[in-house]
């Protein structure tokens, strides 16, 4: 009886101390990654290789998803707007929701599933097959050779992908709204331009996606670098990357949205 009670409190204590332990490890890892970032930036060949695998290979899913999200927004938005006789505002609704929220957030979620999971699995397998240890033996810092380029690729490709997602979405809304439903082309664009502010909305959205790229990139390399060197370890690290990244993106989005758009008009 006594041992079960002890075990219960031990489990509670272990839960919190292990979380704190993880957090400290993550902070130390981020610090050492920042220190080698300057060395890694100059090795553009490595970054371009990672940009190809993370960014270019995600292009299709991002563009197609954006197109369909924009189309769905147009159909749903028109359904409500035409009741109030202001179907021309469709462009405003679609553009604002895409530029401010859906573009950065959905792109980050898709990126976490499409690219970050692969990065975690790759680094985790490198760890499991002791390639990272071998690099260390050859006096090659795995942090600047393997980790930093993958992190930087996520930071760079996220805003580009978010912009592509948003553009594809607005194009999709234009196809549905203007081409199929028959909203006036000029009103669609001019109302959009009158309400979307370049500084607040467009730059704010891009800033969001840079923050998301940093978070998602950091989580994916961290989980891979410290994955248990077994098949199960890599599998659970990949899962954790997707889950933690998605939650982090949604939480950061709330914080950033409150910071940027509250008290604005």
């Amino acid at each position, binding site marked *: 009886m006594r041992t079960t009670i002890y075990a219960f409190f031990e489990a509670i204590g272990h839960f919190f101390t292990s979380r704190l332990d993880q957090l400290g490890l993550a902070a130390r890892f981020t610090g050492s990654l920042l220190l080698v970032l300057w060395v890694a930036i100059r090795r553009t060949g490595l970054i371009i290789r990672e940009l*190809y695998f993370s960014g270019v290979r995600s292009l299709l899913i991002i563009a197609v998803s954006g197109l369909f999200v924009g189309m769905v927004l147009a159909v749903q938005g028109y359904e409500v707007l035409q009741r109030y006789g202001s179907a021309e505002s469709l462009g405003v609704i679609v553009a604002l929701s895409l530029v401010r929220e859906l573009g950065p957030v959905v792109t980050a979620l898709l990126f976490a599933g499409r690219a970050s999971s692969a990065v975690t699995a790759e680094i985790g397998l490198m760890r499991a097959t002791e390639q990272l240890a071998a690099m260390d033996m050859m006096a090659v810092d795995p942090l600047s050779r393997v980790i930093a380029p993958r992190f930087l690729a996520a930071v760079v490709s996220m805003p580009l992908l978010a912009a592509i997602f948003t553009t594809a979405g607005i194009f999709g809304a234009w196809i549905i709204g203007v081409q199929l439903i028959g909203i006036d082309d000029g009103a669609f664009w001019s109302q959009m331009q009158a309400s*979307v502010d370049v500084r607040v909305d467009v730059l704010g959205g891009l800033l969001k996606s840079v923050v998301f790229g940093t978070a998602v990139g950091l989580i994916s390399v961290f989980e891979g670098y410290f994955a248990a060197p077994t098949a199960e370890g890599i599998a659970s690290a990949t899962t954790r990357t997707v889950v933690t990244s998605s939650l982090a993106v949604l939480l950061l989005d709330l914080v950033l949205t409150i910071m940027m758009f509250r008290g604005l008009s």
Partner: protein
Amino acid sequence: MNRSKFDVAVGLFVAIGLLAMVFMALKVGNLASFDNGAGYALEAHFDNIGGLKIRAPVKSAGVVVGRVEAVGLDAETYEAVVRFRIYPNYRFSKDTIASILTSGLLGEQYVGLESGGDPVYLGNGDRLGKTQSAMILEKLISQFLFSKAAETPAKVP
């Protein structure tokens, strides 16, 4: 620096991404139609401007002829002071009436200009003498109710 076989694909990716950003700035946002300070500023005092905001359009006969630049309160008369910039290719006579109108029932508010017949034109910094305030729905309703009440006096037994 070594050439990499990924250069072309990554270059294309970055180019498409940057193009998308330019598209967002120019076609979706209003960077292209940014007022570059051209035109002349006018000023008008209103009793009430309703929900007029900065960058709201100034229209004449439905055509956008300028933008609202600043909204303030006159500390002495407690009137709203609206300053707006008219595009340089439009001229308005001295007795132009400015009113605050709403596009549609629930649409955005804008400043409407109705030109008069005065041969003298307004210049930079001039103040419009005749203005008409925003229509406040609550006031209209209460006026309507009061006039109804006045028409049919309650029967006193």
